């Protein structure tokens, strides 16, 4: 049984301007001990997907449909009490900006103890012992003293370690990480990723890594889903996605990455803006920005179909197989340059 299985999940927000379909028909699953990378630009629906999974979207503002199975148990529609049990106990979550994600007027220790006391029937003293223990695990020096410090006394990287400690303190089976390294500098990013990997190996948890950084995905993920305009547009094993991406948006993402082995010159960029979710484009949401768009793309949403390479590699695109292979090989040659020649 997968640790988490999401089927046909849709979330729309009712706003004054109309209905915003932030997520539509998203499905994926993740097994225990594995890492799923979720890639997409801002507004692609990746964060909302996981806020919905956690039951953190406000039901007064949002309509949710589909199915979220946590170890086989349906989470959509269960009561607030059950959701609170799940949050922090079965699913831990860390967020993008460690500078603002901790309460500025409470000590680190207090906030860690709170996480323990919500879910475990232990004394405050015992909670404090657990807090110091987990701070040591996330490699915070002098943990037994720093536990009494306030968030502003920590650097960004240290705060993200505290956030990870807080998400892991109750030993969750699943960790949802929403852009955990985006706000950090590059060396700190590497340290945090290494830490997450180590903790995953030790605790055998499943990690959902939400990011727009393909480097992070390559580093950590086993499987990847690419989201665009609130939909999954491609899903594959991580090696397959990088070796043979099947649709133009993914091509654009890969082409916009700087490469060590490139011949130099300007990085490619995807022209245009991410789609408005209030008035999404007809047909394939990517067609206004797609250099290969056909008339069919404007009217008809491509199905999420299986790649001829198989192995669960799926994508949305109307282009014929030979056409896609030809375009990608051309692009790939251009990217790698002399190396390929």
């Amino acid at each position: 049984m997968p640790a988490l299985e999401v089927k046909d999940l849709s979330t729309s927000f009712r706003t004054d301007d109309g209905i915003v379909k932030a997520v539509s028909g998203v499905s994926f699953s993740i097994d225990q001990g594995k890492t799923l990378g979720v890639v997409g630009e801002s507004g692609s629906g990746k964060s909302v997907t996981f806020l919905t999974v956690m039951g953190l979207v406000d039901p007064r503002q949002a309509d949710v449909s589909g199915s979220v199975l946590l170890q086989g148990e349906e989470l959509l529609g269960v009561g607030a009490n059950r959701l609170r049990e799940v949050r922090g106990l079965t699913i831990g979550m860390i967020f993008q900006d460690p500078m603002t994600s901790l309460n500025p007027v409470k000590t680190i220790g207090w906030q860690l103890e709170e996480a323990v006391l919500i879910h475990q029937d232990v004394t405050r003293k015992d909670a404090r012992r657990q807090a110091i223990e987990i701070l040591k695990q996330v490699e915070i020096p002098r943990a037994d003293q720093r536990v009494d410090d306030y968030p502003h006394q920590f650097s960004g990287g240290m705060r993200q370690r505290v956030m990870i400690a807080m998400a892991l303190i109750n030993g969750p089976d699943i960790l949802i990480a929403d852009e955990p390294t985006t706000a950090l500098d590059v060396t700190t990013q590497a340290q945090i990723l290494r830490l997450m990997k180590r903790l995953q190996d030790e605790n055998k948890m499943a990690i959902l890594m939400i990011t727009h950084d393909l480097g992070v995905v390559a580093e950590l993920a086993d499987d990847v889903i690419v989201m665009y305009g609130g939909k999954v547009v491609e899903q594959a094993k991580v090696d397959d996605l990088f070796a043979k991406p099947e649709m133009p948006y993914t091509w654009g993402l890969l082409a916009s990455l700087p490469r060590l082995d490139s011949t130099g010159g300007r990085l490619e960029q995807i022209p245009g803006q991410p789609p408005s979710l209030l008035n999404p484009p007809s047909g394939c949401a990517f067609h206004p920005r797609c250099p290969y768009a056909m008339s069919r793309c404007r009217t008809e949403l491509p199905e999420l179909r299986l790649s001829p390479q198989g192995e669960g590699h799926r994508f949305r695109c109307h282009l014929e197989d030979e056409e896609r292979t030809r375009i990608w090989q051309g692009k790939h040659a251009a990217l790698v340059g002399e190396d390929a020649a």
Partner: protein
Amino acid sequence: MTQFLIRRLFWAIFLFFAATIITYLIFWVIPADPAALAAGKSATPADIARVSHFLHLDEPIWRQYLRFVWNLVGHGSLGHSFVNRQSVDATIAKDAPVTASLVFGGAIFWLSLSIPIGILSAIRPRSLMDRGAMIFVLIGISAHPVWIGLILSYVFGYRLGLTPIAGYCNFFTGTEGAQCEGPLEWAYHLILPWITFMILFAALYVRLIRANVIETMSEDYVRTARAKGASERRVMTQHVLRNSMLPIVTILGMDLGLALGGAIFTESIFNLPGLGHEIINAYNTADLPMITGIVVFSTVAVIIFNLIVDVTYGFLDPRIRPS
């Protein structure tokens, strides 16, 4: 901490000079003849000249100002009233408790109304409760304190006879010639002024608290608390409230300091012998020492309350706690 206090003290001295010099300048500009007013209606020009000389009003304004500063620094005295020669210090000492009773009592009233309403309308924006509160806010902000005071006094004091129409009684017993005294009478006479104050300020504070709570509820650390599995109640009490009350403390400190300088309208309507009442009288008789004295008092009040706010802030917010 010492450095902080020294910096504060310099600011206080600067503010003192700024406020008093401006008072003197304004007094110098306005076309009033305090000597004529002090001398009375049947005074001859010779009388007025004598009074003018006696009050040092024939001196240039900067010498009058220096005389005031010398009196305060050298003798610790704010001088004597032009009109009745009474000591300004004694008058302020007599009036300040009245204004303080009004302001602090009023603050308790307006806070105990606006904090729960502000929080409830923030939790349920656009609800019936929230809209009702907003109507109250609109009335409170639009209505003038004179109008509110008069209506309250007319309805509850005159028509229904539930409260006194106006007047003040001392909190402490034992004043000679007092018509009424003691805590009960004191509160009984102040209830309408307090409510007037409450309507005025609660309106602003409901709006302020609501906005702050709503803003705090969308903070990242509140989402973190929810992701930990905290109940809504816990999220509110442990994470939202303290953070959202921080700006309120600043504004409350400023409002209290300002109001202590004289709640002019409310005191006038209810005939409370406080500083606001006194400054209106002083203004009508061009009584410069009295006006300056009250300005000095309210400047000091504002400075002290800002200091209290800063110290309180240090307790509430570890980020600015001096280490």
